[in-house]
């Protein structure tokens, strides 16, 4: 693996996590203010933009690497998103959810490595 592919893999992961957090915030804003408001549209646009970057980076990586090589990195997104949602969105992260996320992440890494 070259440095470039590591950077691309990390970039795909970071844009994916960032996109999810922004989309969650966008949908939360619709609860109080509905769909026709500039904050929702701006956040939705940002979220979709980040997810699109992540999508094409992943497609490009799939051309070079096996899915089984790339998937462990996606598995890590579970625990990263849970922790980031707790920090940035102030969601309640109970010890049960933390353990659940860790087990799922570890399981995905195992599944995809074999």
């Amino acid at each position, binding site marked *: 693996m070259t440095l470039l592919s590591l950077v691309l893999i990390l970039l795909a992961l970071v844009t994916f996590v960032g996109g999810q957090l922004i989309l969650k915030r966008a949908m939360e804003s*619709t609860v109080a203010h509905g769909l026709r408001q500039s904050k929702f549209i701006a956040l939705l646009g940002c979220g979709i933009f980040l997810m699109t970057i992540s999508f094409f980076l992943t*497609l490009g990586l799939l051309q070079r690497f096996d899915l089984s090589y790339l998937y462990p990195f996606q598995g890590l997104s579970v625990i990263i998103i*849970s922790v980031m949602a*707790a920090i940035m969105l102030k969601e309640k992260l109970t010890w049960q959810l933390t353990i659940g996320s860790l087990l799922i992440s570890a*399981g995905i890494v195992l599944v995809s490595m074999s």
Partner: protein
Amino acid sequence: MRDRPSGFGNPWLQLVLSVMCVLVSELLLKRGATETADPASEWSWTGINSLASPLVWWAIILIIISFISWLYVLRYIPLTIAFPLSRVVDILVPLGCWFFLGEAISARRWCGIALVIIGLAVTAKPVARLEERL
């Protein structure tokens, strides 16, 4: 968790719909991307040349459907619960290959599947309790 609609608007049903669409799209994407791989192309790192495959376009349609139902899920369910649960797709792919295509699953992979199932159960348990109270 706030009041939410039942029937087709039930966010848990939408979560299942979203997962199913992702499951099929992942398989289509891998085939489409492999089909169109062109490492010689200067732009191949962007993956953009995979758009030449119709399979990738079918996958994109499914991704759009799963995206809309996912947004709907996000409106009602916290990310710390919805996202881990949505990764059930990562064990459904190997299980689907094993069940439908007769592919072998290694011991290590079975262990991983077991870990994910335990993780899903641990994550879903507080949700079940929450639902009961409503």
